[in-house]
């Protein structure tokens, strides 16, 4: 185990395959099964920082939205924003519970599916629960959930940071209808529709603020890999929405660990060929 790599026998894939196939004739001694949607690269990355996968886990929530609120009103569509926040939080606490039950300390590579319908908001989370190799279970509230891939998770840990959980903020806002006189006056002009612009800014501000609040509540120093979805709601003519989510991180070691990236020259580049397009 302590031998330097150079002292190892040269690796022969054919022998290894033969050994692997022959081993199937022997009885398996393992009794502990795991399930995971990670690739083998991701599993090796996890292993390199002393973590292992345990179980595929999920969290779901569906929240109803009070009927008929999308089309008429002023300011924020509070019912929809609230339903979105609640759906997200409930889905997260369910995936926490599944992960903790399976013995995981965290969930990585979480696929986040969210959809906003006129009458309800759906959030679905699916990821692989992981833990330090052989570690004992933790409580559901101590589990972290992250949409970072296992590779990014490993990189983050090596750099001295730790993921704390998902933060999400969403806000839906009415774009107020213009006065009828303004509509008539502007009907033949190319102009900015300030009601929509302002609504976008307003929903963005509330959503980002909410995401930040969630990050602070998790005692994080920042949110990485933030995803943003924004735009008018397809089912309502005067409503716009903005949602942002990402993984909350905190520096776990005393300082950021410099990683000193090593320069490599790749030897599998495609051959340079004459490209007529560059002459044009």
């Amino acid at each position: 185990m302590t031998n330097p790599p150079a002292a190892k026998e040269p690796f022969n894939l054919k022998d290894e395959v033969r050994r692997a196939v022959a081993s199937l004739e022997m009885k398996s001694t393992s009794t502990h099964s795991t399930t995971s949607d990670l690739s083998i690269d991701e599993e090796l990355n996890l292993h390199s920082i002393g973590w292992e996968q345990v179980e595929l886990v999920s969290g779901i929530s569906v929240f109803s939205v009070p009927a008929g609120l999308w089309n008429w009103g002023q300011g924020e569509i509070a019912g929809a924003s609230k339903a979105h926040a609640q759906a997200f939080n409930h889905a997260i606490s369910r995936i926490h519970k599944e992960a903790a039950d399976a013995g995981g300390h965290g969930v990585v590579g979480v696929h986040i599916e969210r959809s906003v319908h006129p009458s309800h908001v759906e959030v679905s989370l699916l990821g692989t629960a992981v833990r330090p190799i052989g570690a004992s279970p933790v409580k559901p509230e101590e589990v972290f959930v992250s949409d970072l891939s296992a590779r990014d998770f490993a990189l983050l840990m090596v750099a001295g940071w730790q993921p704390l959980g998902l933060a999400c903020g969403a806000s839906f806002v009415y774009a107020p209808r213009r006065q009828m006189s303004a509509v008539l006056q502007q009907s033949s002009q190319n102009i900015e529709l300030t009601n929509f612009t302002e609504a976008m800014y307003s929903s963005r501000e509330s959503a980002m603020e909410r995401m930040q609040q969630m990050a602070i509540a998790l005692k994080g120093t920042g949110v990485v890999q933030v995803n943003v979805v924004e735009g008018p709601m397809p089912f309502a003519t005067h409503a716009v929405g903005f949602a942002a989510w990402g993984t909350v991180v905190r520096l776990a070691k005393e300082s950021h660990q410099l990683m000193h990236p090593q320069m490599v020259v790749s030897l599998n580049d495609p051959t340079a060929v004459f490209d007529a397009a560059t002459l044009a």
Partner: protein
Amino acid sequence: MTEQSGVPDVAEQRLSASSFSSGLSVSDFAACLDMGLEPVGLVQGFCAVRTTSSLNFGNGPAGFTRSTSPYQLSSGDYVENYQCPHGMVSGEHRMWGQNYQQPWIENTWRQGFTNAFTRMVKEANTIGAHGVVGVLDNVTRIGQEGVLEFSIRGTAVRVPKLPAPSSGPWTTYLAGQRLAKIIEAGYVPVSIVAAVSSVRVWASCITEYLMEGSGMTMWAQNSDSVEVEQIVSARMAARALVRNSVRAQLHGDQLHGVELNIREHEFAKGDLEIQPVLRGNRIRRFKDFDPLPAPRLTVRLS
């Protein structure tokens, strides 16, 4: 066909001829040869089944219709009832709702998949393969009649000078580089694994009001946003059931590279089927991980 799950005679003749066919891409084919796996033939299995009871609730196994009590309908592990809190309102009002597992659908699906799978493995066995790599499976719905066609195929491979496997060939969805990496990491493929679960949701009055928007009618409890418990519970249960079903097939091995596909079908208003399919590679550790060096960050200079 000589027996129920045997290989047709002509297929046997074709497979025993001296040339091989392979479904692998050229790069996967090259990687296979690199690993010392000799392709011996493209092997396939088919099976078509019919799942009548998924058509509508009138055709359930006990002949239930929406107007009769649903209790004790399910013979599965999961069943949950939702009572109407309103009392008798009108003839159209839903007095009850139920989530229940539909084992008869799961069993038919399993039968279809297993038959197609064993037929493919039998073909591989016939031509002396040690394993089947690069497996592709496909489930096609034929028409509206609840007929499913399972088609599984893969490339049978042989390890030269190794005795024939005593318990049939191993199988994996992986091929080429990804297969090589698995083995380098100390895992040997055992089998492909797939399972389905089926949960039927007959919405209660509350659930249906909520899905239409809370506060919609005088019967809804309040005008605030409320979690739709029945749907959430059914979806969580469907995922847990399919995972447990796959786990039961692992026997202490690992499930790698899982894919979860969820099909939700609304037969009628307030009548929903949730059907997740979970597939993956069952793999077994045959040697320890080599101690791996910590990942190193690189910048490509090109």
